[in-house]
């Protein structure tokens, strides 16, 4: 197995922005979860932080899949930043209920990620619901309070 040399631009983060689009269906969630874990691994998150991100993405996607309109898409962006990775997940929903309405799911999500925000915008014929979370590479990088 040879290590492929990457361009200097990519090397600062190792990973560039990734955008994934799947059906908003519970069966697709493991795919996004694996994507998240793989990216976190390549960003050199510690192994617990990788698992945390895997679960956070699972939770965020699960919350949104349940809200999603039938036959719609789940969009997911992974954006590496200097101090972690920003993950945005978005669906189109019929109703504009915020994901945080699921108190337990939201608790889990906020426990797993450094920051979590939600937005609900009215769009043509429905709502666009987004969850955005920031995950950090592990306790070495943050003030553990």
């Amino acid at each position, binding site marked *: *197995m040879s*290590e492929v040399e990457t361009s200097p631009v990519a090397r600062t983060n190792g990973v560039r922005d990734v955008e994934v689009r799947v059906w908003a269906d*519970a*069966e697709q969630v493991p795919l996004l979860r*694996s994507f998240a*874990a*793989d990216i976190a*691994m*390549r960003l*050199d*998150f*510690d*192994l*617990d*932080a*990788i698992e945390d991100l895997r679960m956070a993405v699972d939770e965020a996607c*699960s919350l949104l899949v*349940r809200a999603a309109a039938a036959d719609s898409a789940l969009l997911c962006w992974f954006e590496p930043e200097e101090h972690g990775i920003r993950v945005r997940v978005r669906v189109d929903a019929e109703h504009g209920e915020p994901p945080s309405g*699921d*108190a*337990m*799911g939201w*608790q*889990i999500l*906020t*426990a797993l990620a450094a920051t979590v925000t939600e937005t609900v915008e009215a769009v043509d014929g429905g709502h666009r619901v987004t969850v955005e979370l920031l995950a950090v*590479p*592990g*306790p*070495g990088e943050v003030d*553990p*309070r």
Partner: protein
Amino acid sequence: MSTTPGPAAPEPAEHPAEDEKGGKGTDANVERFRALAELDPDDPKRAALRGDLVADHVDLARNLARKFDRRGDQLEDLVQVATIGLIKAVDRFEADRGNFYAFAIPTIMGELRRHFRDTGWAVRVPRQLKELHVTVAAGRNELSQKLGRAPKPSELADHLGLTKEQVYEALVASAAKQGTSLDARLAEPAGDRFGYEDDRLAEVDNRRALGPLIAELPEREQKIIVLRFFRGLSQADIARRVGVSQMQVSRLLAKTLERLRAALGEDTLAG
């Protein structure tokens, strides 16, 4: 190995060579194995004797299979693997070596171990990768001890003298070690999976009241509660994640629970 089942029939030692093998030198089977070796491979009597010898020792295979059963495989599958080991042992045993059990037990154990090495993975993975997985898992334990936190892939690579790509491969492979059937996932009730509909209706009121109270807790207490009760982590794990001592986690948990109880009113939580 002291698990030789059944007492060996106390038979007079006719063959001095067997006595040298120790206390179990008088294996009642020796004569039959000797007969087996002398019969012509095409002789139907040989096949019958071979079958008898296997059948007479199937309890041994079953006992050994049971030792491995805790890993979650179906016992019957393991008994089959162990029985294949037993057949190999019957075929390869040389009567002059004395004790059949001393030969059969390691042979059967070897067959069971090979079964786990080759098929313990739900997904077929090259042997090299399995070995890498074992190396990385061991390195993870060592480094976790040393660093007091989970290691990063780069640290694992340095520690083990591997490339980062190799560590990545091993990590991805271990995530795939236990596959979950898609059907099994669909069969799970949605409420279970997402943990948000509780069929214990009596608790609904308490839980509803608890939500806002938890939301009011300081961030650290909130995190501890979630890790402890929603994710089921041990206090030690929580201490490591939150960055406080285990004693402190214990105290904070007790204090927080007391506070939540007080806020809900003792009588509400009586049930």
